[in-house]
């Protein structure tokens, strides 16, 4: 392989990793607050279809991104109502959300199949930075949503560990009763972080339909929502590690595609397509064992509904 080919694969890794990154960040936010939402796949699909529809309708991809965030948030608010207010089982509710989202997006997207968006998210070369050898073409010849994610990751990290809001958020995920006893509104905040998490997943979906593909195809996430859920565990609920993990998965995804394009046909293309999913399983085994050893892991109250009266 030439260096150009390697650069091309790495740049493609970031593009393929970005939808995963947005979805994983959203799920990290939600889970840090103690709510597990397995509806990521469904929220991404609904985000993708509403983003694409609005972008086609308005001719402005940014309106599409906003619509996707709103749609993802709306989907998540169903989950929030069921699990936070009604204290339904979070796993069951999340699975239902994925099935619902898959169906809903297929239904809404019927008229959109085969349409080409008039305008999608364009690649912007960052002046100066994009001409750095190696790093420039990989990191700084991307679209605006990628650049936005470069900003969001460190900001989220600071929010988690350096602000009062982040402290409260982690507290309601670890021990809601303790947080409640010092006057933190557990129910309200869990709603907020669940909806925000859904908005992130929606944006992840919109990235697929507005930048990565860019078109609408039924079921176009192809399991990326599930990879994002696995990534959260791999990243140990940390946004920076989620970024690395997303690019790693993006890389595997991109490699399969590129190797084929380069005419390297040693391995069956079906096998290459399978790689990210096999890798998910392997990574989960390794990450879980590691977290067992180091006694770090999921937020203490993850998946548990909070009930003030319960003793």
């Amino acid at each position: 392989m030439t260096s150009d080919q390697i650069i091309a694969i790495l740049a493609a890794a970031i593009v393929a990793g970005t939808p995963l990154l947005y979805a994983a960040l959203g799920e990290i936010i939600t889970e840090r607050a103690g709510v597990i939402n397995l509806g990521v796949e469904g929220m991404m699909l609904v985000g993708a279809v509403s983003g694409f529809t609005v972008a086609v309708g308005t001719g402005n991809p940014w309106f599409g991104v906003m619509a996707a965030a709103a749609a993802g948030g709306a989907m998540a608010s169903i989950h929030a109502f069921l699990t936070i207010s009604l204290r339904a089982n979070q796993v069951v509710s999340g699975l239902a959300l994925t099935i619902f989202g898959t169906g809903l997006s297929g239904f809404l997207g019927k008229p959109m199949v085969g349409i080409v968006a008039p305008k999608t998210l364009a690649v912007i070369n960052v002046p100066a930075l994009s001409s750095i050898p190696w790093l420039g073409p990989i990191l700084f010849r991307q679209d605006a949503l990628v650049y936005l994610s470069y900003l969001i990751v460190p900001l989220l990290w600071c929010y988690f560990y350096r602000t009062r809001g982040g402290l409260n958020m982690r507290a309601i995920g670890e021990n809601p009763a303790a947080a409640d006893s010092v006057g933190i509104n557990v129910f309200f905040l869990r709603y907020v972080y669940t909806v925000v998490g859904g908005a992130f997943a929606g944006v992840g979906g919109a990235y697929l339909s507005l930048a990565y593909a860019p078109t609408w195809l039924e079921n176009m996430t192809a399991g990326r929502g599930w990879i994002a859920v696995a990534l959260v565990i791999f990243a140990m609920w940390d946004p920076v590690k989620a970024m690395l993990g997303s690019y790693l998965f993006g890389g595997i995804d991109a490699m399969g595609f590129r190797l084929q394009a380069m005419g390297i046909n040693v391995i069956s293309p079906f096998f290459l397509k399978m790689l990210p999913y096999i890798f998910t399983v392997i990574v989960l085994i390794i990450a879980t064992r590691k977290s067992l050893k180091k006694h770090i892991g999921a937020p203490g109250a993850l998946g548990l509904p909070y009930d003030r009266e319960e003793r």
Partner: protein
Amino acid sequence: MKKHQVMVEMKKITKSFSGNLANDKVDFIARCGEVHALLGENGAGKSTLMSALTGLYRPDSGEIRLRDKTIELKSPRDAIEHGIGMVHQHFKLVKPFTVTENIALGASTTPFLLNMDKVEAEIVSLAEKYGMKVDPRAKVWQLSVGEQQRVEIIKMLYRGAEILILDEPTAVLTPQEVDDLFETLGQMANAGCAVIFITHKFKEVMAGSDTITVLRNGQNVATVKTSETDQNKLAHLMVGREMTAKPLEKKGQPGEVVLKLDEVEAFNDKGMLALQSISTEIRAGEILGIAGVAGNGQRELAEIVTGLRETSAGKIIILGEDYTDRSPKEYISAGVAHVPEDRLGTGLVPNLNAVDNILLKNYRNHRGHFLDLKESRKLAEKMVEDFQIKLSSIDDPIKLMSGGNLQKMLLAREFHSEPKLIVTVYPVRGLDIGATRAVRQLLLEQREQGAAILLISEDLDELMELADKIAVMYEGEIMDILPPTYDNLETIGLLMAGSKCEEVGV
């Protein structure tokens, strides 16, 4: 504020829960510079009264006055804004957080961008002022229970609490930690705070308070100066009758060795070594008491001698036969009875009725695939009568029964098979005086009939009364085995805190 000035006055507080009167026109006064003990049996209304003062419950009627002004408390947050802070029996701490993070959490003074150095400095100065030792950078899960309690106290002081309420603060502490706690509470009172603690232990009331209010059946029966009363008077006030404090009798001589543990080791659920080279034996007709602060391997010990947990090393020998790592069923067949810590979770099935719960242990003795329900009912009825269990009907789910009756039923079931070895963990936890006495009496009867008993307890007085030998556990090790005399009390306390004998000077 000046000493002895009234800080809080609660007037004619009444609160009922679905028809049950928990507080009946209770008057209560807490003064500045005073440690005030709130004494009463379980269900006397102590917690309800204090919950009204911390905004958890709103009283049906009555008035709360703070510094001569009527206040209304709608939530715990309201209470803390008025300077009323509560340290709950079960700590409200976020375990993976540091001490500093826990203290800053939810405080109104915490800025959006955290400044932990500043909080740390304040914690250190508060801790010094009241003579408490605490490392602000330690994670809470690494702290001992006593240290966690200090964090809770500092958390309240950091929020400017001037009235500090502690719910059963001594239940989880070693005797030395209790002394330290009372020292701290005294210093806080000296600094002008009003300190209130809830308890049902006379000894601690006498040692740690200036004034005592006794509640009985939801009413304030007396408020007295500690210096003007004694344990007998308090006991009389608390139960409403003279205590028949005749000590329980212990008869009989120990027989053959029933349980022998040889260098046993085991891991806990987190995969850490919870038991280290445990070697001891219990003879028939003998009670071995295990003293120690909860979480030092007692649970794991009970689990390995009932077959519920695998050992990683060593041997368990019951009546001469090696039972190491056999199944719980084989332990039961060998005559091992288990009265677990969590009687409603592990011991009994809350939603089943008395007949089914009793059946759980001896269904194997029924012939064929069908259960003989008639016989089971008869057995259940007999047990209810023999053990004087009070229940509405043997067909009702047992979760409707009171704690004391549940425990009696569990004992009835476990003792029915005439066990050779009885493993019992915190057998009187949460029981009132009457039920406690009944349970202890039943244990002594089993001892008399020749059962070997492993009694894990957090109450040293109970161990003194029942045990023939006391083994002290600390971090999974048996530190020493001592005879149950009050002369050994201090030594036992130090061993519970992890000091070796040489350091103790024995």
